[in-house]
């Protein structure tokens, strides 16, 4: 246990600044393991597919990717023959509710002070299942029953005892997260203080952001004056909104109907914040407007439309329509809406309805990394990036393809051959029970 915590601490700087890592650095750390996955079909995503390729890692970092005959494998490297297998970057889910996450309560419709950080169960089986689904990075979000239901949290699905073990630190020392907002029918309720209409929803949000603008100015002035005599009364809610106005945090906005989508674009225009449109069921109706606003989207493909009024006109071609217009598009599971283990299949539906295979794979990986501002460290297989990758039995978009292994920062976190891991991958008696994370791989 103790050594594990130390290990996590030792890794922390690497996690935050993977690009500055260099094997030449003087360090008391033990020699980092070099692993070579050879003879695989590799989709680096940032560059075209390579047949008969090798992925070379040192410690938690990728040091080379390329055709096997062009990669020099050091003599002390551990060689893993991946002949017949396919390697893709670890999948990035930009919108998930695994880890029995919760957010705001029913006391008010806007609760920016609430953090999902304080609710996550890292031992929940849904996290093991997500690893079995090839997911390595997630944006854990609270629900859509509020105009603003709280602060999200970006996690790497490392094995760990606390949510901090899984968290991602930004250069300023704070954790990486966004803010969850919603409009449309989910956040409309029968009783106040919740809005009863769409116009009221927008008015409540605008009023709150106007207050945050005042707070933002006050806070900026206080920091500028830098007077130790003066105290600054923090407001946890306004502080979060001011961070959004400062461009430090991204708004992840649940929205379905075309008019609701335009309302989000209008809010963005007025307050100038960074926003990602999530679900976007009617994206095909306002794809031009989304493209013109240069706003990224995170889509989900459901097996049928409907289930609620505003998802009636959901179409599978959303992905293709956005791709045509060059909109940065990621995908999400919205687990439990779509199980994390079917994430690859979700992208295959996008392909079915006209997305290119390249963009569909990008939507599962690099586009998600970009949307979460993590693309410097994850999302593709490139030297210098964190060694997050998935071994597949074949074509990423074939229904018959199985996820064989998932690796995060050079460590195996899922192995289909391991009986315990297989239980999480396929289900079976006990698959629904939380248990100590004795998973296959971390202790090996």
């Amino acid at each position, binding site marked *: 246990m103790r050594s594990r915590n130390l290990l996590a601490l030792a890794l922390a700087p690497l996690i935050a600044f993977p690009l500055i890592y260099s094997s030449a650095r003087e360090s008391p750390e033990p020699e980092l393991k070099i692993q070579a996955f050879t003879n695989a079909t590799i989709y680096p995503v940032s560059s075209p597919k390579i047949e008969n390729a090798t992925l070379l890692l040192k410690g938690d970092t990728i040091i080379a990717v390329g055709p096997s005959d062009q990669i020099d494998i050091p003599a002390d490297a551990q060689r893993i023959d991946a002949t017949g297998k396919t390697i893709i970057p670890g999948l990035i889910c930009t919108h998930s509710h695994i880890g029995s996450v919760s957010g705001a309560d029913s006391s008010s419709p806007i609760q920016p002070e609430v953090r999902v950080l304080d609710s996550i169960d890292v031992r929940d089986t849904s996290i093991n*299942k997500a690893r079995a689904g090839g997911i390595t990075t997630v944006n854990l979000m609270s629900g859509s029953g509020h105009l603003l239901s709280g602060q999200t949290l970006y996690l790497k699905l490392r094995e760990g005892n606390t949510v901090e073990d899984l968290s991602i630190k930004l250069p300023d020392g704070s954790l990486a997260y966004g803010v969850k907002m919603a409009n449309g029918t989910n956040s409309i309720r029968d009783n106040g203080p919740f809005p009863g209409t769409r116009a009221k929803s927008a008015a409540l949000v605008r009023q709150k952001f106007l207050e945050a603008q005042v707070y933002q100015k006050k806070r900026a002035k206080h920091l500028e004056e830098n007077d130790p005599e003066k105290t600054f009364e923090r407001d946890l809610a306004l502080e979060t909104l001011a961070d959004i106005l400062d461009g430090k945090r991204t708004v992840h906005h649940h929205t379905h109907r075309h008019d609701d989508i335009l309302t989000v674009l209008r809010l963005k225009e007025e307050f100038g914040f960074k926003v990602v449109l999530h679900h976007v069921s009617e994206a095909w109706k306002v794809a031009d407007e989304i493209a013109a606003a240069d706003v990224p989207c995170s889509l989900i493909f*459901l*097996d*049928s*439309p*409907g*289930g*609620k*009024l505003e*998802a*009636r006109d959901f179409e599978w071609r959303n992905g293709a329509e956005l791709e045509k217009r060059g909109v940065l598009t990621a995908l999400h599971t919205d687990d*439990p*809406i779509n*199980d994390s283990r*079917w994430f690859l*299949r979700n992208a*295959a*539906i996008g*392909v*079915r309805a006209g997305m290119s295979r390249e963009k569909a794979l990008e939507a599962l990986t690099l586009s998600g990394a970009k949307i979460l501002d993590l693309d410097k460290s994850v999302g593709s297989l490139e030297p210098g990036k964190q060694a997050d990758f998935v071994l597949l039995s074949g074509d990423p*978009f*074939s*229904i*018959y*393809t*199985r996820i064989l292994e998932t690796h995060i920062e050079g460590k195996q976190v899922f192995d289909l051959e391991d009986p315990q891991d297989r239980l999480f991958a*396929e*289900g*079976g*008696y*006990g*698959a*629904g*029970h939380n248990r100590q994370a004795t998973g296959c791989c971390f202790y090996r």
Partner: protein
Amino acid sequence: MFKSLLLFLLSLSLTAAHAQIAVKADLLFTMTGDLKPIKNAIILCSPDGTIQAVGTDIQIPEGYQTLTVKVATPGIIDAHSTVGLSGILNSPKHDQEQLEKSAPIQPELRAIDAYNGRDPLVKWLRDLGVTTVHTGHAPGTLISGQLMVVKTNVPAITSLDDTLVPTSAVAATLGSSALSKSPGTRAKAIALLRAELLKAQAHARKISTAEADDEKDAPAPNIKLQILVDVLNKKTPLLINAQRHQDIASALRLREEFGFNLILDGAAEAYLLLEEIKAAGIPVIVHPTMGRPFGDLENMTFTLAAQLHQKGIPFAFQSGYETYVPKTRVVHFEAALAAAYGLPREIALAACTIYPAKILGLDDKIGSLAPGKHADLALFDGDPLETTTHTTHVIINGKLVSSTAK
């Protein structure tokens, strides 16, 4: 009378106006015999809506509309759905007719009185290749009502002839989804069911006594008990949704006591009772492979279908009942995932064509492609189980009902 005659003549003339359809398929799954596909096959549809000929050495007569496709299968059959009752909008009092919660036991509720074939989800499934659904009242109360079998081109039930089977099963549920105030426990649920079935036995006895003895009056008509009498007489099967192993065991115990025809539905933990289910000789309509692993389904496995197949237990796939999104699943998508988890591909296809037809007692009409059977076909531009494959055309009763290439 005149109006219906006019409609009849009109429909005749429309039939005549449409060319008969011939399908040329690189690969044809007839789902007969060993289930292996035939290469370069031709199917001719006859004007009466049945299959005229299937084979490799068939000349397409002049005047036929020929569809050339990569893969053809029998029209997909969904062994258990609530489509047409649980509408796309999920709007209570408007399009949610699948579950009446005013009482725990209501077998008298007929599917034919609730079905809306014009709901967009019916079209959604039809465009994807589903030609027949076993649909009706959802799991969620002890006995929620009846099911029926209907083709997905039927917009409304104007007569019983619009269905393939107007009352195909009575839907029961054991387990936590059927528990509320009362029955509030599993034991109470079974006690209530047994009491109701005993009442039905008594009702049946009174009827036969009255039939045999003119002095005795027939019991007062009771539609609730009458349908349960049909269940006890094995005229209508009891489809019991049971996910946990103890609930499956309860279903078997009930069948043992009352001797009805049982169809096991959902059966997430059936892998714990393979011997018992096999010995009972009952079929299983497995929960959707993509069912959510919570509540009674927490121990579900994607390998269930493969395990049932290996054990030789008859089974079929279902789209099931969804309360939120997606509002309906697509049965061959569920079959496809089972194929990724150990089920042979042709068996996966059989379990959404000929296997459900057998379980529903309709394999003389649907589920396979042979002369005289209904000309229901789904046509694809690739492997029907691959997510990236499109359904290019759908044919019901020899008529093209979709060519949206979805």
